[in-house]
């Protein structure tokens, strides 16, 4: 039964990783930007939510209605003002800029929020769980995060495949120049894609703060897991990020079942195996098709 438990917990953990990975996948798939500050932005969102909660005394999870739109605006502005400018210089510049942002965010958080670790006070929700058998129970928090990831991915899928803006995003991702001569304002479209990616990273940050604790340096390890989920699932494939997240999550929980300290290592080994035997990822698809 403990093995079944490990698999189920791993699948649910995959939801958290998918939430981290989908923003990374959009930024790479559409704008061709590798955002090394992705994990740090999630942590920044978590701190922002903490700030909102302590100043307004709203319930912890309602802060999402403030933090996610704020991050969407941050994403749009960041794309138009910083990322696009560095993209115009060279793709390598964006890598350096995002690495710089990562360092800046971590140090700013250290200065303004100290190195103490925090987590959200979600009341009784944190310990409540769905009891399936006496040995098997699923925490509502894990279910909530997994559900959020699935809803986000379905929403993104519908947005990209059914709306005019989604079509323009896919066109610009295919061929930016051809999109511009077809009348697409590609800089605006990239801004919208970045806004979506940043709103999703805000959700990932909130999920992180609910699922476990966070401190200013919690970003980079999350970035590694997000990268692994994206690459296991297949670059540029939305559902691939969920599959990749689940594979990584299950590998980690089963690894931890074998040896309590072996979870993270098992995840890395599965990632390496995918890189060696199926470098294109498990799902080879284009955005939203």
């Amino acid at each position: 039964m403990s093995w079944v438990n490990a698999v189920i917990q791993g699948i649910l953990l995959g939801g958290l990783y998918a939430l981290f990975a989908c923003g990374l996948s959009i930024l790479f798939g559409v704008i061709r930007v590798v955002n090394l500050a992705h994990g740090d932005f999630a942590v920044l969102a978590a701190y922002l939510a903490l700030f909102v909660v302590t100043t307004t005394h709203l319930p912890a999870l309602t802060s999402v209605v403030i933090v996610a739109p704020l991050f969407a605006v941050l994403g749009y502005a960041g794309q138009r003002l910083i990322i696009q400018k560095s993209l115009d210089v060279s793709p390598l510049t964006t890598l350096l800029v995002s690495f710089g942002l990562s360092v800046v965010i971590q140090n700013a958080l250290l200065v303004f929020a100290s190195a103490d670790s925090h987590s959200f006070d979600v009341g009784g929700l944190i310990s409540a769980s769905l009891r399936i058998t006496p040995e098997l129970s699923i925490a509502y928090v894990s279910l909530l995060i997994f559900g959020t990831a699935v809803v986000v991915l379905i929403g993104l899928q519908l947005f990209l495949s059914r709306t005019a803006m989604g079509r323009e995003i896919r066109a610009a991702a295919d061929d930016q120049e051809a999109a511009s001569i077809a009348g697409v304002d590609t800089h605006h479209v990239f801004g919208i894609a970045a806004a979506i990616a940043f709103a999703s990273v805000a959700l990932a940050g909130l999920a992180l703060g609910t699922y476990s604790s966070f401190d200013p340096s919690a970003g980079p390890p999350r970035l590694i897991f997000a990268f692994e989920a994206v690459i296991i699932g297949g670059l540029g494939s939305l559902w691939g990020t969920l599959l990749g997240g689940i594979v990584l999550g299950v590998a980690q929980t089963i690894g931890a079942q074998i040896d309590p300290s072996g979870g993270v290592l098992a995840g890395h080994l599965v990632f390496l195996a995918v890189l060696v035997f199926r470098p294109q990822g498990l799902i080879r698809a284009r955005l939203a098709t």
Partner: protein
Amino acid sequence: MLEIRNLTVRHGYLQAVSNVSLMVSAGETVAIIGANGAGKSTLLRSIIGLHRPSAGSILLDGRDITALPPHARVREGIALVPEGRRLFPSLSVEENLLVGRSSGRPGSWSVERVFQLFPWTGERRREPTVHLSGGELQAVAIGRALMANPRVLLLDELSLGLAPTMVRRIYGVLPELVAGGMAVLLVEQDVAQALRVADRFQCLLEGRTTLEGTPPDATPATIETAYFGPVGRGPGSAA
């Protein structure tokens, strides 16, 4: 309608287009001919805004559009069918056409009207473009440009990679377009094809205009000189 004044475009140290002027009026078809590397495609790409000219200006109905980005020029009524078609591989045929409407410019073109214009293309609107033949790809590329309801249509090497019968079919739609008042500026390596459809032509050699006129003026000897430079002077000395 479209006027180019003394346009100069540089690629690094290379001057791809030098001091070229031309005019296309409503309902007129003008062909740019010339050898490989004469600057024909660069000229078209500069008109849509993909290259910034280092000198000269581009006017549409007397309004200077030289500083506008490509999508804004599409909104003003210029559309380009690019060399190599450049369709979006992850989009269906219909979606490719719909992207052409992104500028929001009003007009009468619709997906249905594009399919009416090319009745010989199959009913494949839901299929990805990878299943299409070269002629069908070119038809979709022209359709995508028409969906922007352009007043000026720029055509870059439509005949490239197509069988001669297909080339004639593709060019066969031009009379219907110009009859509606559209201005057409086309670049073509196939000189005979270009002269068949054009009202006027302009020949480029190393980025400069070497000959212009109407197709009856074009004798094989004048075209050859305009194409390759005067006899006894290598193309290098012409620059």
